[in-house]
């Protein structure tokens, strides 16, 4: 493993009964890299994020973070090691206030140097910190989900379709925030359907189909790749 590889996924498989959602996926994410993950629905992107973040235990293969085997660890332990994630459909702690949502994650972080005020200000949520999280709109809930993840002070952020459902203006704002986080040194794996958004926040992309990687490289090059074209346009 190269010394600057932060996350290494090696031949990971994940099956649900007879359905194989991941079929030997391998990828490396280097320190400081922002890697995109695209593919049609059901291609295994979110399943991969779930395996890395500890929600699913891999059926086979290895997941290493900073050289340490993390495949099969529970999500809280993965979080303590420095990986956190956002959810495609965030479910904030609805009866808690916005501030308390961040505070809960802060209080369980073993490495956080961040402050709730700074996180909420960064995400433009400071003005609504005393509101119940359930009262936020979708875009605000997604930002709060990002705030909850940031509260654990992650070295690596797994971003699962943060752009879905956001207005073009909100997308620009969120892209700028992700880029700012990257400038801080946070490595990212970004699952996204919105290619324009992805182009703003990632360097390279992996294209997945049917639980396998079919392309790795620049997003522009993906559009020229015959396998990718076949998957997205049907040949």
């Amino acid at each position, binding site marked *: 493993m190269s010394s600057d590889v932060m996350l290494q996924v090696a031949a990971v498989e994940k099956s649900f009964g007879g359905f194989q959602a991941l079929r030997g996926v391998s990828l490396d994410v280097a320190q400081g890299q922002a890697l995109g993950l695209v593919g049609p629905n059901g291609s295994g992107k979110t399943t991969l994020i779930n395996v890395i973040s500890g929600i699913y235990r891999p059926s086979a293969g290895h997941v290493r973070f900073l050289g340490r085997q993390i495949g099969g660890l529970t999500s809280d332990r993965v979080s303590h090691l420095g990986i956190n994630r956002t959810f495609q459909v965030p479910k904030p*702690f609805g009866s808690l206030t916005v501030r308390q949502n961040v505070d809960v994650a802060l209080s369980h972080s073993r490495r956080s140097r961040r402050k709730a005020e700074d996180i909420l200000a960064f995400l433009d949520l400071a003005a609504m910190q005393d509101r119940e999280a*359930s009262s936020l709109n979708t875009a605000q809930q997604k930002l709060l989900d990002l705030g909850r993840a940031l509260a654990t002070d992650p070295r690596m952020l797994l971003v699962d379709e943060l752009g879905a459902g956001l207005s073009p203006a909100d997308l620009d704002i969120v892209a700028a925030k992700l880029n700012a986080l990257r400038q801080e040194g946070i490595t990212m794996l970004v699952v996204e359907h919105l290619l324009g958004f992805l182009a703003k926040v990632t360097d390279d992309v992996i294209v997945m189909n049917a639980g396998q990687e079919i392309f790795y490289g620049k997003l522009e090059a993906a559009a020229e790749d015959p396998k990718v074209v076949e998957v997205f346009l049907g040949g």
Partner: protein
Amino acid sequence: MLYALVAGILFGLYYALISLGLNLSFGVLRMVNLAHGDFVMIGGFTAVVLYSSWHVHPLVSLVLGAAAVFVVGIALYYLLVPRIATTKDPEMISLVLFFGLSQVIEALAVIHFGNNEQSIFDPVFGTQPVSLLGQSLPAVWLVSGLVSLVALALVYLYLYRSRLGYSTRAVMASREEAEVSGINLHRVSAIAFGIGLGLAAAAGALAPFMLGGITPDIGTGLTTTAFAVIVLGSLGNPMGTIAGGLIYGIALMLMQTYLPSWASLLPYVLLLLVLLVRPSGLFGRQVRSA
């Protein structure tokens, strides 16, 4: 009428105490503990045995029983729940398993205590009735109301004023996001489950007085009543149980005053009505997926 209302409030607080633990464990586990009422029965027999053997005051037995059952609850959680959680259909398996646990506890209680009703007949809470809002009531009803209020207040402080409580509410809202946030799901859930059973045992210590006596088969009916109370309040929202308990208690007392022969149907009727008219409970926001 006023007597029924005052008595209903006191019994409502008591039924909230009986039911709160079931809601707490449902909130964190999303499983209905069908053995919940059996822990009320255990608390009741604990109080009866400690009093008949060593004249331990029921309020002392209440604390001792709740503490012991809290520890047992945590052990039981780690013995059962992590295994259930990894099965393909944890909700269904949990129903079967907790039902089986209920049957085992009841059978053991029958072996040890027999089928006859047992109680504490000495006037440990005095012989003089007390006056509340102009109504003359047995002193133990007032004691029960106060004990229930203290227990409910302690649960409120735990849930809304402690770090553990915030974590517990986070787990209730979203297990996945809570765990990803660094919360040890099993530790938080085990403590909530233990507290839930401890509350049931605490309520049990008052059962010889509030319910007239204890029999080994009392648990099944109490689980049903507790389930009706938490559905009435709000499934998965522990503090909604207080409202559910009060409504149930007042309705029960009104029924016993005006339609006594129908009173035993009350939990089932309320359960059906709430599920038909407002499935999220009278004070709930949404139905939890169980």
